[in-house]
């Protein structure tokens, strides 16, 4: 906990300020307020500008997040320079939480607290519009978490424009709501009776509630209006192939188990898959586990640690049929035609110590 430094803020010559940034309409005012009040209290100011990365920042699609963060930091740096004028201000910028798994406001509060402790921060200034990553309406707001954790902060008094919310986010939010609404409505009607007016009506109401309350947590990466439906169609093509693989593998494993000598050959192998982490990697790891004879023990980034029961299953894995299938689902037919993990030297048998 880092609460001790706060009272002496005015006494020390250097004041250290922490300003978490996010791309809001009031972020400019927040930075301005922080610099101004900071210079009132002390002669020189050390201004820490940080951007906390959302938890899915390691997926390739969210290179965008990283670029946005860099962009925001450099803008904020020039704002501070502008506001400070001739005063003695040192600026530190950082992106934090890159190798952590920030999910809710609680994680954000904790990581700010840790940062404050590490850098002997005297004051924390929060943008009232601050939006940590994935904030669903169901989660506790950041302010409450900061109070719970005991990190004192100050909310910058900003003038909010009448209209809240980011302009750019609106089409994205709409896409999420739209997709969530039709997914839940469809599911409701499959379970109910699509020709009965009562089900149609209650389904629309339920789907509306579900969409409003859960759309933000369900889709963590922005949806693509063209790609997302195509992926669903490709997935429908992939399923029969997966079923066929499952049946083949089942027969092979059954034959081994039922033979009195039980010629099993357990081995662990490591496969570097060429799919991005997140949903595609989950789909691949699940398909591998679903096929008897291969079992995903660990999945870290793109690296899968797979336990295989019989040599045939291991060979199939090294031939990468399922990987091609998943690439087909997520990236299209051209992307599916890649060399197998064996050919590109991404698969090897490892010992038990790899666990």
């Amino acid at each position, binding site marked *: 906990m880092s609460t001790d430094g706060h009272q002496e803020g005015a006494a020390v010559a250097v004041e250290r300020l922490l300003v978490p940034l996010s791309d809001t309409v009031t972020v400019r005012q927040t930075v301005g307020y922080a610099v101004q009040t900071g210079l009132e209290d002390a002669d020189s100011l050390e201004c820490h500008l940080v951007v906390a990365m959302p938890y899915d920042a390691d997926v390739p699609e969210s290179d965008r997040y990283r670029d946005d963060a860099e962009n925001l930091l450099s803008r904020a740096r020039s704002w501070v320079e502008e506001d400070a004028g001739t005063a003695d201000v040192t600026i530190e910028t950082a992106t934090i939480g890159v190798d952590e798994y920030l999910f809710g406001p609680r994680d954000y509060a904790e990581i700010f607290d840790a940062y404050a402790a590490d850098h002997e921060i005297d004051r924390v200034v929060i943008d009232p519009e601050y939006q940590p990553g994935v904030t669903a309406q169901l989660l506790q707001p950041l302010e409450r978490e900061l109070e719970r954790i005991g990190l004192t902060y100050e909310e910058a008094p900003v003038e909010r424009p009448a209209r809240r919310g980011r302009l750019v986010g609106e089409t994205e939010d709409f896409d999420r709501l739209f997709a969530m609404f039709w997914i839940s409505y469809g599911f409701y009607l*499959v379970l109910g009776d699509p020709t009965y007016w009562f089900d149609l009506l209650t389904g629309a109401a339920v789907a509306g509630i579900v969409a409003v309350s859960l759309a933000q947590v369900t889709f963590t990466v922005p949806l693509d209006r063209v790609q997302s439906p195509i992926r669903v169609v490709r997935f429908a093509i992939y399923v029969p192939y997966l079923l066929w693989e499952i049946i083949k593998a089942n027969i092979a494993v059954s034959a081994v188990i039922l033979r009195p000598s039980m*010629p099993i050959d357990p081995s662990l192998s490591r496969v570097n898959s060429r799919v991005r982490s997140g949903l595609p990697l989950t789909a691949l790891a699940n398909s591998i586990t679903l096929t008897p004879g291969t079992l995903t023990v660990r999945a870290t980034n793109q690296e899968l640690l797979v*336990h295989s029961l019989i040599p045939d299953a291991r060979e199939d894995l090294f031939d990468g049929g399922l990987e091609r299938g998943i690439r087909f689902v997520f990236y299209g037919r051209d992307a599916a035609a890649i060399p197998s993990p064996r050919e590109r030297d991404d698969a090897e048998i490892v010992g038990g110590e790899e666990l």
Partner: protein
Amino acid sequence: MIETLQFWAVVALLGLGVFFTFVSTVGVLRLPDIYARAHTASQTDTLGAGFALAAVAVAFGWQQATVYSVLLLFFVFITNPTAAHAIARSAAETGVEPLLTEDPDDADDDATTAVESEGEIQ
């Protein structure tokens, strides 16, 4: 005619379902360690449940309940690997050493040679 065909289709599918569930049970009993057993446990969920649910779908014919059985199969297919992975991963985290063939190329009747310790599973 259709009725008899439907009846025997149901019998055949159920028979296959029971067969794979049986194999899976034998596998759980015979296989040496937790990782190997996790493989065969997933057989019950894939083909065992798959054939049984297919039998249910055929028995119901073309109606709403058929859709339910397809949905059920879909959810089983999502949850089963998740559970198998969770078991294998927690075994790895608690330090259970897998029984491995020393040299995977010339293995035939091993599975008894390897490690004794199954780790500490509380």
